[in-house]
């Protein structure tokens, strides 16, 4: 690494962007800072392997670099990054023939124990669901529902941040999350009888 981790840590997001515009090497700080978070998001959204997710992230960050001078300074940098990474992932999924078929990645551990919507996505309640069960359910859902569920309950973004990532009004985000939760619950209750705990 050309810029030391210590040096990167001292910089704010805006500072990294500023430094990157002056010296390319500083761009690595941005990648390192968001790499795990964005890889996790890509995998959650697409069920792709880490290897594929890394490819997508590389492509997304090349776009980030290209558009760095047009960065929307009114948005938190993370929202802007999520947006570009999201778009790159969707673009990849649309091109990919295996879209929706690769469900082999272990997804988040989601409990279906009591069927309140928030608890369905609560990772901290310590109850593990069967491997890939929640992933399989999410993959059955329409993309517009899956993406809001992932952003809200797994990425823990606010409505405003989701609105900025998906470029839809906050009201639409709220409606979509509500419908997605209902759809998830319905699919989960249909499928739960088939699962062996």
């Amino acid at each position, binding site marked *: 690494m050309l810029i030391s981790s210590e040096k990167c840590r001292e910089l704010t997001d805006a500072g990294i962007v500023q430094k990157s515009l002056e010296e390319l090497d500083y761009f690595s700080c941005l990648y390192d800072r968001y790499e795990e978070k964005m890889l996790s998001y890509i995998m959650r959204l697409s069920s792709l392997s880490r290897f594929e997710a890394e490819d997508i*992230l590389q492509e997304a960050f090349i776009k980030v*670099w290209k558009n760095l001078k*047009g960065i929307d300074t009114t948005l938190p940098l993370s929202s802007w990054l999520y947006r570009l990474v999201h778009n790159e992932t969707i673009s990849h999924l649309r091109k990919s023939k295996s879209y929706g078929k690769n469900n082999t990645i272990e997804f988040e551990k989601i409990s279906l124990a009591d069927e309140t919507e928030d608890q369905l996505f609560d990772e901290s309640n310590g109850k593990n669901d069967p491997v890939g069960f929640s992933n399989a359910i999410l993959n059955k859902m329409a993309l517009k529902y899956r993406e809001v569920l992932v952003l809200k309950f797994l990425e823990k973004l606010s409505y405003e941040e989701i*609105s900025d990532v998906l470029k839809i009004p906050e009201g639409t985000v709220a409606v979509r999350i509500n419908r997605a939760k209902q759809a998830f619950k319905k699919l989960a209750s249909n499928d739960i009888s088939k699962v062996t705990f």
Partner: protein
Amino acid sequence: MKNSDKLIQRLREEKVEQVPAWKFKFSSGLILLVFLAAVLFGGLAFSVILYSLRETGFWALEHLEHSGWEMVLSVLPFIWLILILVFLVIAIYSIQFSKKGYKLALGRWVMYSVALSVVIGTIFYLGGGGQWLEKTFETRLSFYESVQDKKAKMWMQPKEGFLAGSLQETNPDYLILKDFEGKEWKLYYEKAFIAPVVNLEVGEKVKLNGEMISDSEFQVTDIKPWQGRKGPRN
């Protein structure tokens, strides 16, 4: 090798160029300009619609007893209604590409764009702009059916109680009027409301409401000047 190092190496090797800042500013400016221009042109179209509806006496059509819809459709300023819709679509479409265009729902953008066009159009209309624009179209475009043509069509329906033309003879018991098709009418007007600006002089153009009592006789209830008062109504 870390992924971040691979990325930097790739950016260097492929000499990936950044999009210059001016392109982003130009693009944002252009989007805003298209939106504002579309709202402005929508406003101008709305001013002509206002002028057109006022000038033809469109609101009197609610009193039509027969073939009302046919007349309504023939009098409506369709070109301008289509134009206002086109400009509205352009405004809404363009604003979606702006940085913050997604913040408001489509319905809100439609509402705000229409409101802005209505305000601009009303101001333009009150300043006489609607009439000026309409006249410009009338003189420059041969296929354009002017407001005056629509107005004549609207007021040449004696069976529906609408008649217009120029006065040929005036006396206390009746008036003789030649309509725009050259036909003479005998008008009975003893109980009619006569607008203060009407002088009942030979050669004066008037529009009338009332009832057709025979092929050449008309019982008048209202006599109004063919042209409205000065200002935006003209």
